């Protein structure tokens, strides 16, 4: 076992391994490392906005713009994607009963593109914002930062295409013949869905990045209005990739909850079929709503209506997931250990964020919310509230199996309360800030706008609570992986029954005998 301290292996053996669990650990640890790095940037941003007009911590807007850009890019592409891929790597081959990923070397290559892409993003520290709208990113963004951003994103995009190919082939072709696709566990289904989505969505953005690069070099003018191009074309290409990408971030977290909630409810899942159906529906409908990011770019009425319907159409499928979770918990005997707490907290916040999303899809409300802190609050509520909670739940769930030791339930509780409280306080307050009209991505605001100042200060205090809870998380991950009590590996939470998937992942080199 890789990180198991009784039988340690030299670190290079893990690093140069192509085994799916090893690559999975690398992905997960890289993802968590970037989470804490980007979290520090978030703390800087929030602390800075506590004091309007004083330039605390960040004394110029150029640096501030770079900080929020790198914060966003890191959280999305260096935390959310790698952690999903990491847990996917550890569990998906086991869930489909295959010895490894379909292409182990490709898997390792796809992982090792992440640190490279991450280094380019962090060393460049571009100021294009994560959406990098043309023509700013073409005619005004300073190089070489913006060019490094393009190459970094390019590498991360290729990495995510490669790992998606791997997941699709693993699930569809390497699945055990006795296991019908309908009975494949829902977490593996979520990875299959998001991998197919990535394969459809990501090449569009990859093309847009190349076009942006040649535009920057002056060789072409696809998106440059001063060379005959059209910035709106960039927006379409960008959102065609990145609205589906929202579901690509979200579905693995939902899949993780499907692993955790029945386990801690000591009860079968309410309905496998409706989970599969909802995943596939979201995977398809996710492509029908990208235009709702562009209502205000001069879109005509009919197009807006089409995209509004496309957006609303995704809601029943999301609702089916929530229903499935609640129905699973109904009549159960739930042990609220840390993974279950985070999973249930995640569902509650998923619903809140989803309700905000329905409001966003209403065309006239775009006048109020678009480009304000409402959007910041909404999308962070999804990313922290659902995806973050799902991932953290899964990290606690895998912790005994990865380290052979038990985390402290007491400190996990502190983390949970801090994270839930902090998430609600920051991101709900940011919704209100948006209603007060505060634009996103601003370095400073006039101190005489007292409502902005007050709400920002409330949000910042929430962010500090959230940050402190993550400090607890980091400290307990490190401390209890070295000093924690040895875990009862058969049943770490005393739930009764066998934990097939993580137990099999525990012993990667000995094959698994869970079946």
């Amino acid at each position, binding site marked *: 076992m890789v990180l198991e301290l009784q039988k340690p292996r030299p670190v290079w053996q893990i690093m140069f391994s192509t085994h799916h669990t090893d690559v999975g650990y690398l992905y997960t640890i890289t993802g968590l490392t970037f989470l804490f790095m980007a979290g520090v940037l978030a703390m800087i941003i929030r602390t800075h906005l506590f004091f309007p007009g004083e330039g605390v911590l960040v004394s110029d807007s150029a640096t501030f713009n770079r900080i929020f850009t790198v914060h966003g890019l890191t959280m999305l592409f260096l935390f959310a994607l790698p952690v999903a891929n990491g847990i996917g790597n550890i569990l998906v081959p086991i869930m489909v009963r295959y010895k490894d990923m379909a292409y182990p070397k490709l898997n390792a290559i796809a992982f090792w593109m992440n640190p490279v892409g991450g280094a380019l993003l962090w060393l460049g520290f571009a100021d294009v914002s994560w959406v990098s709208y043309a023509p700013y990113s073409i005619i005004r963004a300073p190089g070489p930062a913006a060019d490094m951003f393009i190459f970094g994103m390019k590498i991360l995009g290729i990495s995510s295409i490669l790992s998606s190919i791997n997941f699709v082939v693993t699930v569809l072709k390497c699945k055990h013949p006795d296991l019908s696709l309908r009975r494949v566990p829902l977490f593996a289904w979520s990875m299959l869905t998001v991998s197919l989505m990535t394969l459809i969505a990501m090449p569009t953005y990859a093309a847009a990045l190349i076009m942006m690069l040649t535009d920057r070099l002056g060789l072409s003018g696809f998106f440059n209005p001063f060379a005959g191009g059209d910035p709106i074309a960039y927006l379409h290409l960008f959102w065609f990739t990145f609205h589906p990408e929202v579901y690509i971030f979200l579905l693995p977290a939902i899949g993780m909850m499907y692993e955790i909630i029945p*386990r801690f409810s000591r009860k079968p899942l309410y309905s496998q079929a409706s989970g599969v159906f909802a995943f596939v529906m979201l995977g398809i409908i996710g492509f029908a709503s990208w235009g709702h990011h562009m209502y205000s770019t001069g879109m005509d009425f009919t197009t807006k209506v089409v995209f509004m319907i496309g957006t609303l159409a995704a809601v029943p499928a999301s609702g089916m997931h929530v229903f499935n979770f609640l129905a699973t918990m109904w009549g159960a005997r*739930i042990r609220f250990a840390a993974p279950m707490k985070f999973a249930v907290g995640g569902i509650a916040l998923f619903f809140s964020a989803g309700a905000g999303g329905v409001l966003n899809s209403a065309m006239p*409300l775009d006048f109020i919310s678009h480009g304000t802190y409402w959007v910041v609050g909404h999308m962070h509520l999804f990313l922290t509230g659902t995806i973050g909670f799902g991932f953290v739940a899964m990290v606690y769930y895998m912790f005994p199996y990865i380290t052979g030791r038990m985390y402290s339930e007491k400190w996990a509780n502190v983390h949970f309360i801090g994270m839930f409280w902090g998430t609600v306080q920051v991101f709900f307050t940011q919704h209100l800030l948006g209603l007060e009209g505060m634009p996103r991505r601003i370095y400073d605001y006039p101190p005489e706008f007292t409502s902005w100042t007050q709400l920002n200060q409330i949000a910042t205090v929430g962010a500090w609570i959230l940050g402190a809870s993550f400090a607890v998380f980091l400290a307990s991950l490190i401390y209890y992986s070295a000093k924690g009590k040895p875990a009862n590996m058969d049943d770490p939470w005393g739930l009764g029954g066998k934990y097939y998937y993580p137990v099999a992942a525990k012993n990667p080199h000995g094959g698994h005998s869970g079946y």
Partner: protein
Amino acid sequence: MKSTSKQQMKTLIAVSIIALVALALVSQLHFAYAQLAQQENTKQYLNLRAEVWNLFFRMTTAAFTVGAIVSGTMIWLVWRFRESNPKNKAPTKWEHLEDPTAGSYEEEGH
């Protein structure tokens, strides 16, 4: 099992009907708003900001109604089905299985 699941269904349907009634009330609210806006605004132009903000408040009313039902259900679920609840002393009928999560409702239920 049969009777409990019927009860569950009844509860769910009741909750759903409450939601529908609440939504019907919301549209009444809309009507009242529109009348107010008409009385107040005798000018010839549409009051754009009033229209948009009224829509916003109607939508938030709907969102909070549904939200209250869903999160209420959830809080109740968490309180009622926690293992420390005295009513939950008896193991569920799946717990004798090798893996409770691998059970099914059909085979074990009757």
